[in-house]
């Protein structure tokens, strides 16, 4: 046997030639053949990837060709077609080749529908009705309409709920052919294969639903035994073998549902090649090498071999081994091809020019796969397209069809077959594709499993949304005669400009997204026109915005210039005013001087006048001189008055100038304030940015802390690794400034300490009969056995429980005990099996029989310590004096009491099983309903929070209801779990309320801050047992007893564990450990 034949086809379907390796469907093939014999048709439906096409081509066709079905003639013509973009043309193309009739003529005939197909067959010469050896001369006709869903997925065939004419005609022809074949007993058969999710859309074709109901075959999911056949038998038939453990791992790890078979076949194909083309037994190490399982599953020697092999891998490939899984194989394979496509292109495509860069090679692949996929009705599906459509979308002059083909060839090679048409190794011509060749993703399993492709498609969807928004705005612009008012505004332009740069839409991109049914040429023309309009819209919007910008800048410049001129003018004016004022001052001084002179002169004149008066009789000459002097003085005085007026005027002008200068100064101060405000805003924003950055860093550390904590909860051979991971997680938490009350971190620290036996649960074994305990104020654990024996334990240094000896039978009972309740750490209420009850005081060793029949449900001591409220399973609640045996009062409760709380010396709160809460004054016998019965819920436990005057009630639905005892009103309600709350305990020292729920979870609630998230210290573990008793000691350590007899304990302050870790001498994580566990994407920043 030639081992170069790989018996697993990978992602593509089995061909007829490969039918020899097609296993696991024998029964189904026989059923389909019987259906064909009986009904002349089979409508095969099923989920994507369940092997419909393979079952037909590698199952049914070879089976009937081999003569294993009953038919009129001894040989067969098989006419198979896929609807593609025109189902009728596809059908006629194949039919004319098989029946050897002219294509054009047949197309014209078949367009007329109904019996045209049957008539073509009858006239072809392959239908031999009579004559010698008719059975040997004639040929049966089998028509296969494969991937019939393309009728609905191709826009050319089906748009807005309406099929195209050719699609309708094709369905009419096929159904009429079946009808005639049945009525005339013709050897003509039709098989359809279609994805079942399109079945409801078949109703658009008249009669098709009836035909489907008449002969449908829904491909069943393979059962375990059949999957094992699919895995093992092809290898055996090809001369190879598969180890049993690999078969089991593959069949176990295979997810049910979509893509089961393609994922498996693809993995098997790679496994075969990895196992040296089947010359080695396919085994777990081969699966590990294709990133299908963790190397942890390998033996030591295999793991060493794997590590050596892995070390040689390029870095980009190593990242695909971080989460090995069967579904990851396809992702890793496609991702590796993407990374190595450039090298392949450089080495293998001598015929293509080598002008592209590695990044361009990746861009070609990304664009090609985006173009080859689309979102249809929220499903990612294939979308065929031609090579030149892809080249067109890439739209770079130096990237030609040949370049694109050469880059994509790695996906088409016969080793990979992720893209069709495939390269046939023997035929070198298949390497080159012409521009009009249609490309197609081999199977949608690739779309669903290649994570990178999913990301691209999401991005493409966003692009399409942006395009639709853009188109809507552009349409308004067009509808309004390209009015400038409808151009893009600055904000929208920025958005769409970004999108334009990112998406780079072009004619082919628009064409790809044109979902109309118009002919290709018409759509091409429309896309070109559309593209021109888009460019024009963007260009005009840009021009308009630039013009607006220019105008705005002009205005600002003018305003600034005007302001400068004004300020300059103002300054000059102020200067001039100051000079003027100086001049006025000088003139005033001069006037004053003249005035003084005038006054002096007047004084002198007066003297002279006096002299004249005295010397009146002196000479006339002297009188004339005197008159003349007087006139001069008068003139001087007038000049002084005029000078003074001028000075006043100058002073007024100066004051005005001063006022203008002050105004200008105020303006300048105002501008300065604005500038300062802007500067402050910028400062604040910078501070905000710094804060945001700090917050981001904090989030990063928190994430790192959580990731490390999760890793610290794994099991490692080196258990100190748990410690180091937990310690590092704590350090990250510190860096993040995070709350120490991080549940994951807490759990991780505790787990790490447990793993290293630094902290461990204490085992009590089966010693606790009645499943209860208490802790006294010295931290001792007190347990009462059912014969009355009291045991006391302490936590020893090694973490184990150590019995404190000696002990005596303080309260020996001849009748075994049925119920034991600790009222206080040293006061016990218990019932014996004969329904008698007692109170026992451990300190005084006194025992008080209670005159009441029944079993105790709960008990509570009054604050003064004199009375005890005891609830019985009979519905009675009694008040007992500690020193007597007769109740001082009693009351019956309908809802069956489940817990009691002696609030003050008068009032007792009684919680009933039905969820109701009643306040009972045992002295006046008044009852007040605080809470009515809960709907659909029960309540079993409550806990008092005396320092806050609160009562916490636990419900079976997982909620805690707080009751404010000051006014008996409902307070906060907290959801702690989603299952029954079994037990509750309160630590008055720390204000912590511990709650255990039936889902094996223990949560801590901080009653000092109800907004704080509860800290879950135990989740779904506790050795799968339930908590039956909870208590705190005086150091904040919480003890929980499970129904397995194990006493667990936790420090409720996480910092205690952190301190324990930080004081331990443990090495920090090495870089290689960090990389191995956290991956290189995480760094410690």
């Amino acid at each position, binding site marked *: *046997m*030639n081992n*170069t*034949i790989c018996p697993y086809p990978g992602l593509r379907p089995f061909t*007829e*030639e490969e*039918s*020899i*390796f*097609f*296993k696991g469907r*024998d*029964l189904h093939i*026989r*059923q389909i053949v019987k259906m064909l014999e009986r009904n002349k048709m089979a409508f095969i439906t099923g989920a994507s990837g369940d092997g419909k096409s393979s079952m037909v081509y590698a199952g049914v*066709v*070879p*089976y009937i*060709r*081999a*003569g*294993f*079905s*009953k*038919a*009129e*003639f*001894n*040989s*067969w013509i098989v006419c198979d077609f896929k609807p593609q973009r025109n189902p009728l043309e596809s059908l006629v193309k194949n039919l004319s080749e098989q029946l050897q009739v002219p294509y054009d003529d047949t197309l014209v005939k078949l367009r007329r529908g109904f019996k045209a197909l049957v008539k073509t067959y009858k006239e072809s010469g392959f239908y031999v009705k009579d004559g010698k050896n008719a*059975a*040997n001369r004639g040929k*049966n006709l089998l028509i296969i309409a494969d991937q019939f869903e393309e009728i609905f997925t191709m826009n050319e065939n089906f748009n807005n709920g309406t099929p195209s004419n050719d699609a309708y005609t094709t369905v009419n022809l096929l159904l009429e052919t079946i009808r005639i074949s049945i009525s005339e007993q013709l050897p003509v058969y039709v098989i359809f294969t279609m994805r079942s999710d399109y079945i409801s859309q078949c109703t658009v074709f008249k009669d098709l639903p009836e035909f489907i109901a008449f002969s449908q*075959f*829904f491909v*069943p999911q393979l*059962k*375990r*035994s059949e999957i094992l056949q699919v895995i093992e*038998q092809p290898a*055996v*038939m*090809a*001369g190879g073998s598969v180890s*049993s*453990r690999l078969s*089991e*791992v593959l069949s*176990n790890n295979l997810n049910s549902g979509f893509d089961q078979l393609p994922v498996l076949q693809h993995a098997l194909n790679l496994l075969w090649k990895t196992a040296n083309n089947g010359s080695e037994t396919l085994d*777990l190490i081969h699966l590990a090498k294709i990133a299908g399982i963790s190397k*942890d*599953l*390998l*033996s030591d020697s295999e793991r060493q071999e794997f590590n050596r092999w892995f070390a040689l891998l390029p870095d980009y490939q190593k990242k695909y081994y971080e989460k090995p899984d069967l579904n990851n194989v396809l992702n890793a394979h496609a991702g590796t091809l993407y990374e190595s496509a450039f090298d392949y292109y450089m080495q293998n495509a001598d015929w293509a020019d080598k002008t592209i860069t590695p990044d361009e090679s990746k861009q070609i692949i990304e664009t090609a796969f985006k173009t080859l996929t689309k979102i249809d009705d929220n499903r990612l599906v294939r979308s065929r397209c031609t090579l030149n459509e892809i080249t067109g979308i890439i739209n770079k002059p130096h990237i030609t069809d040949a370049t694109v083909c050469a880059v994509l060839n790695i996906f088409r090679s016969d080793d990979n077959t992720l893209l069709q048409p495939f390269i046939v190794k023997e035929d070198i011509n298949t390497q080159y594709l012409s521009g009009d060749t249609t490309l197609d993703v081999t199977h949608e399993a690739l779309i669903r499993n290649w994570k990178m492709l999913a990301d691209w498609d999401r991005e493409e969807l966003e692009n399409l949304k942006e395009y639709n928004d853009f188109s809507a705005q552009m349409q308004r612009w067009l509808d309004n005669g390209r009015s400038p008012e409808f151009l893009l505004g600055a904000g929208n332009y920025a958005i769409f400009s970004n999108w334009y740069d990112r998406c780079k839409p072009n004619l082919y991109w628009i064409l790809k997204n044109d979902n109309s049914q118009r002919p290709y040429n018409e759509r091409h023309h429309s896309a070109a026109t559309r593209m021109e309009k888009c460019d024009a819209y963007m260009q005009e919007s840009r021009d308009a915005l630039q013009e607006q910008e220019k105008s705005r800048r002009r205005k600002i410049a003018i305003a600034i210039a005007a302001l400068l001129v004004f300020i300059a003018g103002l300054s000059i004016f102020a200067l001039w005013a100051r000079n003027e004022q100086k001049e006025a001052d000088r003139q005033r001084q001069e006037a004053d001087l003249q005035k003084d002179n005038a006054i002096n002169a007047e004084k002198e004149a007066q003297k002279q006048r006096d002299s004249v008066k005295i010397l009146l009789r002196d000479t006339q000459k002297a009188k004339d001189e005197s008159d003349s002097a007087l006139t001069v003085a008068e003139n001087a005085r007038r000049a002084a008055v005029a000078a003074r007026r001028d000075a006043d005027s100058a002073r007024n002008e100066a004051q005005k100038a001063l006022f203008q200068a002050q105004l200008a100064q105020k303006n300048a101060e105002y501008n300065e304030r604005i500038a300062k405000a802007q500067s402050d805003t910028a400062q604040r924003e910078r501070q905000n940015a710094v804060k945001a950055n700090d917050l981001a860093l904090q989030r990063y550390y928190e994430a790192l802390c959580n990731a490390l904590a999760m890793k610290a909860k*794994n*099991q*490692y*051979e080196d258990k100190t690794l748990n410690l180091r991971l937990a310690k590092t997680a704590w350090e990250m938490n510190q860096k993040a400034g995070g709350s120490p009350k991080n549940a994951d971190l807490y759990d991780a620290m505790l787990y790490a300490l447990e793993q290293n036996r630094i902290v461990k649960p204490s085992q009590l074994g089966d010693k606790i009969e009645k499943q209860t305990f208490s802790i006294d104020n010295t931290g001792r654990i007190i347990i009462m056995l059912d014969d009355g024996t009291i045991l006391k334990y302490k936590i020893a240094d090694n973490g184990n429980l150590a019995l404190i000896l000696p002990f005596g039978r303080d309260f020996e009972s001849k009748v075994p005990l049925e119920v034991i309740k600790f009222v206080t750490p040293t006061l016990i209420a218990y019932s014996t099996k004969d329904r008698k009850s007692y109170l026992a005081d451990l300190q005084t060793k006194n025992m008080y029989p209670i005159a009441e029949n029944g079993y105790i449900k709960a008990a509570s001591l009054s604050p003064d310590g004199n009375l005890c409220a005891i609830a019985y399973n009979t519905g009675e609640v009694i008040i007992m004096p500690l020193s007597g045996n007769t109740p001082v009062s009693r009351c019956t409760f309908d809802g069956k009491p489940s817990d009691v709380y002696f609030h003050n010396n008068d009032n007792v709160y009684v919680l009933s099983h039905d969820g109701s809460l009643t306040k009972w004054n045992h002295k006046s016998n008044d009852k007040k309903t605080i809470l009515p019965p809960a709907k659909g819920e029960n309540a079993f436990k409550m806990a008092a929070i005396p320092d806050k005057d609160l009562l916490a009630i636990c419900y079976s639905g997982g909620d805690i209801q707080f009751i404010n005892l000051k006014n008996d009103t409902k307070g906060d309600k907290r959801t702690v779990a989603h299952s029954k709350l079994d037990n509750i305990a309160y630590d008055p020292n720390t204000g912590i309320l511990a709650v255990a729920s039936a889902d094996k979870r223990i949560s801590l609630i901080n009653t000092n801050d109800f907004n704080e998230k509860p800290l879950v210290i135990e989740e779904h573990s506790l*050795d*799968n047992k339930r908590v039956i008793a909870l208590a705190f000691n005086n150091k904040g350590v919480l003890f929980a007893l499970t129904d397995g007899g194990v006493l667990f304990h936790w420090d409720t302050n996480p910092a205690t564990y952190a301190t324990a870790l930080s004081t331990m001498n443990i090495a920090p994580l090495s870089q290689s450990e960090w990389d191995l566990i956290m991956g290189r994407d995480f760094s410690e920043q």
Partner: protein
Amino acid sequence: MVITLYNRKFTVFLAAASPDMDDTREELKYVLDNASIEIIDGNDYKAESVEAAVLASDCSVHVLGKTDIYTPDGDGYDTMAGVQFRTAKSKCNKEFKMFVWNPVSTINSTNSYINSIRRDVVENTFYTDKPSPIIFVEDIRNIMNVKESQSQQHEPTDIFFLYNDLDSDTANGIYNMLKDFQKVNKLGISMSSDVDYNSYISDQLADSQIGVVYYNYAGDWAVPFARQIWKDTGGNSSKTPLLVTANSEHAKEDDIKAFKGIMECTVDEQLRIPLDIKVFLDKKNQK
């Protein structure tokens, strides 16, 4: 469509499990019972009687928990779960299958003892880590109901000679020459016949030394036919080798390309074809 009724009754030995799996094991017991599977409870047997209980069952079921079933108990003795696992493994064969269930796979994903058990899986051992007991029991029922093909008794023969009715004239000539010196069983295939050729051919081939597919005119038929019976009889792992022999009157060398690398084939004159067949038979007997 045909539905499987799962009528086969079988008995399962439900092995003891580690204490942390007590509840899960009990739940599984109910599910097995609801699936009408008879149960022998491993918890009811002491170590010395486990082997007899296993032998009285058709398969065993083992539930894995957090605790390594091979870790000795507190007194240093082997755990009952470990003893029963080991006993069942030693009996595992075509008639006795072993089903291993790891319902808490997430907890156990890094547990090295689970990995070592998975590494040691041999033929007829089935491992499941799906948490649902229903899925696990469905797998058990499916595997235990796989029918081993029961060959009907046919007359043992040297050569099983197959041809299409289209070539019956020349095929009869070859048959007549062969039957004089070898034991030959011939079968002409007619498409219009109601005979279930598929199972008949598979059964008869199992009782023959070699199978021969002959054709002259019926080349279109011979290729898919030969491939189909090669596949149905186990391909390369089949005890009965296949020879495709074509009459050079109408067949050409190119026709046999389809068989290249899969099975032996010859194109020869009609008179030499019996000799080709004899050589192929002798070669097989020499092996």
